[in-house]
């Protein structure tokens, strides 16, 4: 049986493709899937609209075999995906949706519905919408409006005002996901499993770049110790921008997205343990009951295309002051699990973030997971995000609060965690100290909110001014108080 070591293997629509970077002139390991496709004259349906995952014109669908040997279809932004990330997957493009029968083109139901509902005007965003709708079609039958909107949030259209596209989704998604892909699924599954079986670590080298894609965590740790300068990536939703926007040459990359061991979600008696490689989309689904504040934050995090690639480890590792999961993890008092080849550390999230985009991680270490203590009985945890646009936007101010009251309505403990108000995510410690031990009422909260107003010194930038951020930070506590009364 063939072993994959130096070549990336995936199924492009219905054909097995192998890409070997040694003899490729046009591709490198950091070529995006978008640019790879557009190199072919017959794969130009996929469009570049922004090269940063904000418009969805480049949306393609990735088919992956799950634990039950079924193919799961996910829409992703091909501009944010490096070619090797396709290894062992099926890449579905807009050109493969329609079929030809008796010399007639039979459009896929999602395509036909878009035509019938006048869902395209200039047509440039349309292939991306088609692919998001296709993923929706495969995953839901008669989806609710909420599910439809969520599926389309990552696709921008400047012509239609979206209404006809929503109607097209309603019209199309009624066949339990059945289509011509259903017929070939078994065959595709077998090939993908075969590729998986035949791969341990991909090691892709060109004159200027080395790209490792280990399948086992142990191997990743070893590679990490050997390549302290390497960039660790999983979803690449942030790292890819270095290539697409800044045109940087990434010399050494360790891609941990192929390690299944890092994609766990475990409910323990006292904690919930999340693997660093778990996609935010899966985390969103899994955390709905146990960690509602995290779930809520993930509903307004990026878009489905981004969440399907992005991971919790990545969001923590970038240590951005506007990283949306950080205030939530602070409020839950989570800890980060960090491992090297011969050591394992567990660091509280408050100690993990050191400074603006700096973390307590050494060059031989990898973030492997997050331990989230289950909130104590009666603790109220809630997250908030203020952004210019409600969805697919970066926070102007975000916050997550955890409150525990005793029987007399006195604050036993409180965490007020904020993003967007300082160089790092930060707790409003002064306000916390003020509130603890006091009665939880309007007057105290108003006073505490004024402390918050003074406590932070946010910046003015492209998103909002300093004053707006202060007011928002202050008001969110008042909002939390109001929400806490109905909890």
């Amino acid at each position, binding site marked *: 049986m063939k072993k994959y070591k130096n070549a990336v293997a995936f199924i492009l629509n219905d054909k097995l493709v192998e890409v070997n970077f040694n003899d490729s002139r046009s591709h490198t390991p950091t070529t995006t899937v978008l640019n790879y496709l557009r190199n072919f004259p017959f794969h130009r349906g996929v469009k570049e609209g922004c090269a940063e995952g904000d418009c969805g014109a480049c949306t393609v669908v990735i088919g992956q075999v799950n634990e039950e040997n079924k193919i799961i279809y996910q829409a992703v932004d091909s501009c944010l995906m490096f070619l090797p990330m396709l290894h062992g997957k099926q890449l579905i493009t807009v050109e493969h949706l329609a079929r030809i029968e008796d010399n007639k083109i039979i459009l896929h139901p999602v395509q036909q519905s878009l035509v019938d509902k*006048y869902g395209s005007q200039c047509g440039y965003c349309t292939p991306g919408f088609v692919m998001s709708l296709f993923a929706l079609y495969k995953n839901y039958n008669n989806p609710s409006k909420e599910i439809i909107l969520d599926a389309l949030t990552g696709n921008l259209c400047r012509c239609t005002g979206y209404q006809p596209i929503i109607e097209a989704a309603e019209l199309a998604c009624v066949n339990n996901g059945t289509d011509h892909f259903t017929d070939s699924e078994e065959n595709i599954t077998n090939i993908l499993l075969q590729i998986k079986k035949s791969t341990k670590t991909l090691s892709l080298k060109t004159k200027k770049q080395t790209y490792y894609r280990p399948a086992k965590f142990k191997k990743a740790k070893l590679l990490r110790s050997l390549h302290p300068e390497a960039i660790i990536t999983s979803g690449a939703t942030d790292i890819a921008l270095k290539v697409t926007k800044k045109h940087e040459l990434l010399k050494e990359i360790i891609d941990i997205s192929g390690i299944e061991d890092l994609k766990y979600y475990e409910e323990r008696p006292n904690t919930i343990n999340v693997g660093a490689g778990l996609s935010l989309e899966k985390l969103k689904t899994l955390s709905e009951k146990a960690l509602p504040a995290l779930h809520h934050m993930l509903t307004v995090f990026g878009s489905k295309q981004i969440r399907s690639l992005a991971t919790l480890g990545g969001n923590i590792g970038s240590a951005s002051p506007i990283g949306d999961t950080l205030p939530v993890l602070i409020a839950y008092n989570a800890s980060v699990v960090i491992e090297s080849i011969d050591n394992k550390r567990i660091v509280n999230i408050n100690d993990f973030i050191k400074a603006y985009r700096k973390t307590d991680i050494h060059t031989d270490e990898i973030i492997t997971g997050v331990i989230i203590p289950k909130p104590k009985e009666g603790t109220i945890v809630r997250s908030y995000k203020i952004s*210019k646009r409600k969805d697919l936007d970066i926070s102007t101010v975000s916050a997550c609060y955890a409150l525990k009251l005793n029987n007399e309505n006195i604050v036993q403990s409180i965490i007020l965690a904020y993003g967007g108000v300082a160089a790092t995510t930060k707790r409003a410690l002064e306000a916390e100290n003020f509130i603890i031990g006091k009665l939880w009422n309007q007057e105290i909260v108003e006073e505490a909110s004024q402390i918050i107003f003074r406590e932070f010194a946010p910046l003015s930038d492209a998103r909002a001014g300093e004053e707006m951020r202060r007011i928002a930070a202050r008001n969110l506590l008042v*909002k939390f108080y109001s929400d806490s009364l109905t909890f």
Partner: protein
Amino acid sequence: MKDLQHDSAKLHVTGEAIYVNDIESNQQTLIGKILYSKHAHARIKKIDISQALLINKVHAIVTYKDIPGKNNMGPIVYDEPCLAEDEVNFIGQAIVLIAAENEYACIEAEKAIKIEYEQLEAILDIETAIKKNNLLAPPRKIERGNPDGVLSNCEYKIKDTLHIGGQEHWYLETQSCLCIPGENGEMQVYSSTQNPTETQILVADVLGLESKDVIVESKRLGGGFGGKETQGNHVACWAALLAQKTKRPVKIHLSRDDDQKITGKRHRFIINYEAGFNKEGQIEAIIFEQNSDAGAATDLSMAILERAMLHAENSYFIPNIKIIGKAWKTNLPSNTAFRGFGGPQGMAAMETIIDRIARQLKKDPLEIRYKNFYKISTNNITPYDQLIENNRLFILHDKLSESSDYWSRRKAIHEFNTKNKILKKGIALTPVKFGISFTTSFLNQAGALVLIYKDGTVLVNHGGTEMGQGLYTKILQIASAELGINPKNIKIAPTNTSKVPNTSPTAASSGTDLNGMAVKNAIDILKSRISEVVTVEFNKDFKYDLTKIENIEFENDMVFDNFHKDRSMTFKEVVSMAYLKQVSLSSTGFYKTPAVNFDREKGTGKPFHYFSYGMAVSEVLVDSLTGSHKIIRTDILHDCGDSLNTEIDKGQIIGGFIQGVGWCTTEELKYDKDGNLLNHSPDTYKIPSVQDIPDDLRVELLKDFPNENTIRKSKAIGEPPFMLCFSVWLAIKDAISSIGLHQIEPEFSLPATNETILLSIENLKNKY
């Protein structure tokens, strides 16, 4: 008329539709890149390209010295150099062009080019331009009655300033052009342009050629919205220079960030207004001073200012009015056309006045609107002396206020706001009256070329460009209806300057009005030629009861005598016969809009062929603690005359409305102190997403009100719905206002971002 689906819909959904960047060009094709100014205002002391020329795979580096023709791409006033010479006037101004085999080589070359600047003082906002008296052109004025005198005697007065933001077009397809050099210096240009003729002229100018040497073709645009009316010319000129120099095809497809940084946008405005009215809310006099940020060059700024002035009163009769328009020159990219073309900015101030009168008099804004609408037989003359005919304001108002349940919802909202402290609701009904025609009257003309082939199929050429608005589909419907044949047998050819010359831009919502009529004219000519042949044929066996040529009809793929229905032939047979009888089966067509004129000096005339009307009611929910808002419901009733295609027209209405909502709410342009645009990608520039449209959106077309004297009694639809967005903008203001129990005028500007909303509420709370 039967609605056809968008003629490219199947190509769109299968990914088969070809845009400029998708054209399969040969292996020799080079990639072009623009090196642009990093300073808002500077003297260029030195340009050193020597190192860049040595880079592998780089084929050409071009500066202004290499331009064989005129160094200009200004469409009207020649004040926009194609490449900067010794001075740069905005960040994003092109200085050097690079052609290389791939993007990487372009980037390397860009890094290797050294430019020495001497920085000069820059003007980066309207306020500074006013202080320095940096006018672009002499101010314009439209005046009627005695506004100054009447104002000073009015019992009630309002005087304030409104700040209105710009807008990035955010067409999904960034500016792109492919130029292929031909024999004898000729240039074939595939351009994403709304104005193929102007692209042709400017490319010829910079290359030192004539129009006959340059062919521009535009198959489809991935969105235009005015952003490719002149800005498409720039990319074409640059690509053409590189293609001419290298003698190889050159393609330029701007990256999103470059596109946002270097191209012009909707003009931001500062409008000073002063209004006088009586205690009933009847407006007696208004003075507007409109100040627009033209940017670094003229482009279309004066025409845009003109339209802003011509829409300053929106739907209201203002007996005494003065509108002063001033365009100011700043060190920013030259601002340009954008759906509405100044109309939205002009109307925003008028709607603000109405809203403020209502608050001041403690009346409902709708009452004030109704009171001041243009009337049917009196009070029906615009400030520029045009008579308002076929006024649709009252019918729209009556139908919409009823179908949207405006008054009972107003009451419910009041109750909601009394009960809720944090969440506040607001509602507004706003009208649009939009003038249709280019105000530069000679532009109101169009040409067509219709070819009938021997097999009975038809190729239609016209001067309009397809940018998603459905022009080709409407033209197809018109051709099909006029020829009486199945649309399957008709194709609309890509717009090409070698087929139809001297075309006007596809702009001013006029695409179908003008080109549709020109196509009809060509078809009428062809039909009369064919009818002659058919008449002879029908009559060859008769001596009495002859077929008359005027009774020949074209319908259902048949040509027949309407009085002797048995005398008929298929269209295909007729065409074949006409060919054998040596009849010409191709014809040009032409149309000019009748009787439009405008005297700029006097500010009077009949600039518009007719007006398009629409109204919208929006209800919003504002979170007073976060400044976020949500559109709960919008009802729209719009007047399209006899709609040519109801679904396409509805698509224009919803799309235009949502684009306007973006301008009014989340789309914000900020510059740093050096003149760098901070929002140059969708990361920070936020157009509406699918989550931002109203939860409940109800759109209806006004039925049974055909338009006079237009193609198949239809009305233009491209721009007017954009301005329905004021219903959302003012509903937000209404919600804010409720926090001060409508006693205090809230601070408000456009866009109403969550920041604007939050700061306004903060201010209101401090006052209250």
